[in-house]
């Protein structure tokens, strides 16, 4: 693991709690919320997180390769999930305790169900609106109906957290290297 210098580029409107484990070169966009006890390790290369993402407790975002790991806007990383994909689009949901391997590239509007393991042997790009569910990680394509309501719900979720989290947790003030 290369010993990179810690360089955090946290937007002033992002809400990052003090108890978060950050390591490496990390950029966090506006409106993103990182709960306490989350882990973001930019071990091999930098991680860039977009706007409005919600990263919950116990989530692990790990980049072991040199290339930049880009995460889009309005994604939800639920409790205990472990994500290593090199690129993630917008409005995805990684449900509780899901694990996504490094070989998968995820576009927008996908849902990885609770407890699902997405570990294909070869590089794979999922289709948009893919839903992975069940203990055997079955795949199907969502019709996309209801995405406007879900996007609205995600924004309301983020707004609520932005208001409530600072009242009960200490925030990490953005610091350079």
């Amino acid at each position: 693991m290369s010993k990179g210098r810690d360089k955090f580029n946290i937007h002033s409107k992002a809400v990052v709690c003090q108890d978060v484990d950050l390591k490496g070169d990390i950029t966090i966009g506006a409106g993103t919320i990182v709960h306490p006890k989350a882990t973001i390790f930019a071990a091999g290369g930098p991680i860039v997180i977009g706007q409005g993402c919600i990263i919950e407790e116990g989530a692990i975002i790990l980049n072991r390769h040199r290339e930049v790991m880009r995460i889009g806007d309005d994604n939800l990383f639920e409790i205990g999930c472990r994500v290593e994909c090199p690129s993630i689009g917008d409005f995805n949901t990684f449900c509780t305790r899901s694990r996504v391997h490094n070989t998968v590239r995820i576009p927008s509007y996908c849902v990885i169900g609770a407890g699902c393991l997405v570990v294909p042997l070869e590089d794979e790009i999922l289709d948009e609106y893919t839903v992975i569910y069940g203990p055997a990680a079955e795949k199907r394509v969502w019709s996309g109906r209801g995405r406007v309501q879900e996007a609205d719900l995600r924004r309301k979720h983020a707004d609520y957290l932005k208001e409530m989290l600072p009242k009960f947790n200490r925030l990490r003030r953005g610091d350079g290297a």
Partner: protein
Amino acid sequence: MPPSIEFYCPCLASTPHPPPPHLASSSYSFHPLHNLFFCEECDAIRCNRCVMVEVSGYYCPNCLFEVPSASVRAEKNRCARNCFMCPNCRNTLTVVPSDPPDTGAAIVNTVGEPPFFLYCNHCRWDSAEVGITFEKPTGLAAQLQKYEDSAPESLEFERLKEHYEPHLRASPSTGPAAPHSHHTHTNPITAAASSALARDIPGVGKYTPHSSSVGRNRSSRNKGNYNEVPDYRARVEIGSSNFTMGGGGETDVDLMKHLEDMSEIATLEQRWENSWMTSLQTGDLKPLRIPLHSKKSKRCPSCRHILIKPEQKAQSVRYKIKLVAANYLPAITVSLPHLYAVLAAMRKPGKTPQLSDIESTMHAGKTYSFQLSFTNPLYDPIQVRLHVQRSLPSSSMAEDGGGPSEKRRPPFSVTLPSSAFPIAAYAEAWEYEDDEEMFGVEEDDFDGGGGGRGGGREQGRGRTKTIGILERRANVTVIGGEVAISKEARGNIKFNMLVSYTYRSDDSEPSEEQSTPSRAQVQNREPEMKTFSFYTAIDLGTIIPREEHKSDAMEY
């Protein structure tokens, strides 16, 4: 596999002796304690195999609505209210409004806009994929009713019922004026069942309850219904090509020939929820009504005493009557103390090994000690005696031995204290004394494996106590035993153990409470001790055979 113990239920067998536990077929007679019931009248263990089960009520698992038994048949065992099941993943569907039109304002109405459809939160299937949408979010059952009624299967079923109903109603009236009340069925389906039972079978004498009117019955019944029923003609010819419904006709073959992707065919789990065969395509799967669940009550098979009776309300999981074996029999757990030393050795940083990770630790030719802890559920103290049954070697052993009669030595021998040991009564936690009592070994008796050295022998205090009462704490007593494994043993260590315990029966009352105790009454009121015994099967685990050690030794 960690060591386990299971209890034997004789299931009304004539002999109380259990089958040998190493046979695979005997595993069905042995149950863990939490699966067993106890009948107080018969003083016997009952299990799920021998108990009589009857339905005590029906309810929908989604809305928890109790459905009266009369409407269960009418609704075809499904929930009549708005409960639907996703055909894809069999989760519950929720009613959801459609997305608002894209005006760019990003303000969503809280009530939601029509059209509404059913949506599965787990796999994101929605009913709009099959074209089912609603105008209102309530009253879905009525809205879907017309879809269901127009399906070809239900039309066929209705037609069948209409065809046979007049004949079934007519059949009791063609017979003599019999006072059999059971013939006058209002429901045509049960009438059909009872007249099918009374059907004329060639070669078997006809059963008529009234012998006086035998002649008239026979002639009128023979002429009666079954010659007059016209042939039923189905609505649609079954063999025609456009009506196969998954039955394997021409349409299905065409479907298979033009198949492009495996996911187009519905899986078996998705299709067998229906009452009849449906089409094979995934695109044809419709939301199903949720099937009802039933609450069952269980009775003893011999005395018909109720053992289990659940509460009437669907959402309560408690029971009105709950005669479970755990309230009468002592709970027994088995442990091997040397496993914990192995666990500690296996411990790696950051990873705690579990007992199930250890495959087996017992080597042939050695002696291991094991511990049994007994927990007394009764409010009176009990005295327990143990008795181990001799186990014969399995047939695989005989093959190794070279001759069937040559090596009939049992593969292992188990030593357990054979004297009775007491277990204290169950009481609330604050009633127990703080200091624990440690009892030493009082008596030792070797059992099995070559010669009985009977009689008691006092153990020296200096020796570590492995056999006998190890610990007595609250209402738990821990007993130690030893198992000596012979050199040629292989397989699992399983043996039957008879546990008998003596307790004061509930009929006794202390004589001080009597106002005028006469001598005879005092005699009757003395507590009588009752004994109950049951068999258990103890599995200590697998033996690591000695072969590998021998081959290692031969290399030198």
